[in-house]
């Protein structure tokens, strides 16, 4: 690691990208709705959300390819609202890589350097450094139509990184690659980012990608940020119903708060069940819409003659009937019908660490989990 990238990695307190109250409207649609966030220097930040949530539009606003209706964008402290893309200190890696078809790999990577009027020898040096960084040695004279999808994406990455921008914007760069290649490229991306220390802003709809790649994530829907936090915060404690279901915490119980004491809230569901959950600090009772629990936190046992009784404050438990067992090899996903919920409960049973019991459809079971795992959701 070079000295500057080492310094950048530790300098997390300085703000690289500052977005304040940005709004972008299209006819009939507000794509970006009062969005604010501060992205720190050196971090990998992901914008995560479903198609059409506004994440790509926000990226284009930062890059300067579109202009916002209101709000401020600052890159490295500099206000860029009125600057065209070629004057902003950021660079974009496009989803379809957008490599210039008539130029070779070196031509593509050196494109921006030519615009900066660097000398031929300097350009040559910088280009070859980046070719080594992205592992494309030997391909320098190839044209884009002679490269594979993964190689093209690496050229696009090198082309942007060689300009040493303050922030690198990635617009779903791995979406067009097949699954195996995508995983390899995720590892590559992280390695490259740690090596050069540039701030990465990554737009994706893939939760797993966001979780494994990012230092922080912003979950976005319908133009708004729903939650910003570290991957473990977003996954383990999703704030709203949308975030919970988008991140795969697929067991959601809706209900209203009926009482609150000792740092716990009591929720009453539509079907009349009482569920206890840890009371969150910064939420009013009437803002709470329900709780979620992750499938891997649920314990499943066959129903016995004298079933164990549970104290609802410590454990949430229900009787149910197995609807289906999906065997996935290293784990099984079991869906259980319980009368306390309209939707089946999803349970993950890990092979190896789980009990050695066979489960089958139609079996009576008890599902239980620690009530402290119940995660409170806002509307």
């Amino acid at each position, binding site marked *: 690691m070079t000295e500057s990238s080492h310094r950048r990695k530790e300098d997390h307190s300085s703000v690289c990208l500052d977005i304040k109250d940005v709004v972008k409207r299209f006819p009939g649609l507000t794509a970006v709705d009062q969005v604010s966030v501060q992205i720190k220097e050196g971090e990998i930040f992901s914008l995560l959300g479903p198609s059409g949530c506004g994440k790509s539009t926000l990226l284009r606003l930062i890059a300067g390819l579109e202009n916002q209706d209101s709000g401020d964008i600052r890159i490295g402290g500099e206000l860029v609202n009125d600057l065209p*893309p070629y004057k902003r200190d950021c660079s974009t890696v496009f989803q379809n890589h957008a490599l210039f078809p008539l130029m070779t790999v070196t031509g593509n990577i050196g494109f*921006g350097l030519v615009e900066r009027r660097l000398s031929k020898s300097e350009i040559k040096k910088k280009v070859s450094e980046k070719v080594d960084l992205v592992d494309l040695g030997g391909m320098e004279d190839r044209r884009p139509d002679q490269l594979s999808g993964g190689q093209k994406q690496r050229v696009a990455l090198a082309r942007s990184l060689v300009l040493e921008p303050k922030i690198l914007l990635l617009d779903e760069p791995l979406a067009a690659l097949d699954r195996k290649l995508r995983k390899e490229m995720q590892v590559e991306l992280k390695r490259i980012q740690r090596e050069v220390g540039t701030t990465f802003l990554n737009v994706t709809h893939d939760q797993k990608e966001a979780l494994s790649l990012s230092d922080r994530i912003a979950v976005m829907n319908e133009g708004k940020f729903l939650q910003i936090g570290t991957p473990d915060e977003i996954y383990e404690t999703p704030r709203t119903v949308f975030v919970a279901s988008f991140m795969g915490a697929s067991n959601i119980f809706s209900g209203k708060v009926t009482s609150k004491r000792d740092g716990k809230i009591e929720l009453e569901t539509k079907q009349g069940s009482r569920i206890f959950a840890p009371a969150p600090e910064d939420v009013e009772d009437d803002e709470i819409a329900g709780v979620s629990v992750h499938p891997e936190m649920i314990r499943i046992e066959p129903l016995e003659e004298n079933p164990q009784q549970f104290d609802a404050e410590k454990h949430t438990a229900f009787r149910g009937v197995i609807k289906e067992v999906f065997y996935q090899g290293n784990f099984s996903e079991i869906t259980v019908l319980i009368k306390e919920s309209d939707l089946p409960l999803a349970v993950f049973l890990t092979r190896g660490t789980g009990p050695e019991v066979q489960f089958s459809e139609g079996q009576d079971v008890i599902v239980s989990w620690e009530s402290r795992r119940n995660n409170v959701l806002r509307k």
Partner: protein
Amino acid sequence: MRRKKDLTSKVLGGLSFFIYFFLWAPVIVIIVFSFSSNKYGVQWDGFTLKWYAALLANEAVKDALMRSLIVAGVTVIVSTIIGTMTGYGLYKLHFKGKQFLRTSIVLPIVFPSVVTGAALLVFFTRFIQIPLGYPSIIIAHIVFSTPLAVFVILGRMQRFDWSWEEAAMDLGATRIRTFMRVTGPTLFPAIAASALLIFPWSFDDFVITYFVAGIGSTTLPIYVFSQLRFGATPVLNTIGTLFVALTMAALVIMHFLQKKSESISA
């Protein structure tokens, strides 16, 4: 089943051959007879190049040829430039009346050429004082050639990946630099193709040119028409061969440029 298929393809093959023969026979006859020493150019009397020699000595033909080439040359350049700009604007900009402009651009080629020719003549003589001769011919040719350029270039732009332009600007190139380094070179085959399409379109035009040429300005097609009263002469065969050769050359070059442009759009 197989035999039926064979029969069908044989019939289709025969039919195609007949159609092509029908289309090409007159042209081939003209080309062949341009080398015949027959005085009227209507049968084969022996090989000769003397009609081509006569052509080279014929001042009237040379004058007409020169005029046709100049008109076509200027038309190609101006129409291509206007056509490229129009295609660019129609594709990328959004303004009121855009749809109207886009559909009405086709009018000059849709109107019967007699109507266009007559209308232009009235326009040049009554409405604006444009001298009949080079100015009127060239303007008229630009009028009916530009739509062609617009279509070819617009068509190419539909397959153009505009993220190339965005990437170029994102990497630091201004709009002009982007056009010079990325858009221009990529569109070049299409621009060249439209130029090569316009050349025969203008060079071969008779009707509109006849209306607006005025006295003393003869293009090659007009010259050929004016020779009709003298009956068939071998010179007509040679001129005909000349037309075919020039047009074929233009189309062949255009074909290769199209192929090159297709390999780029991958």
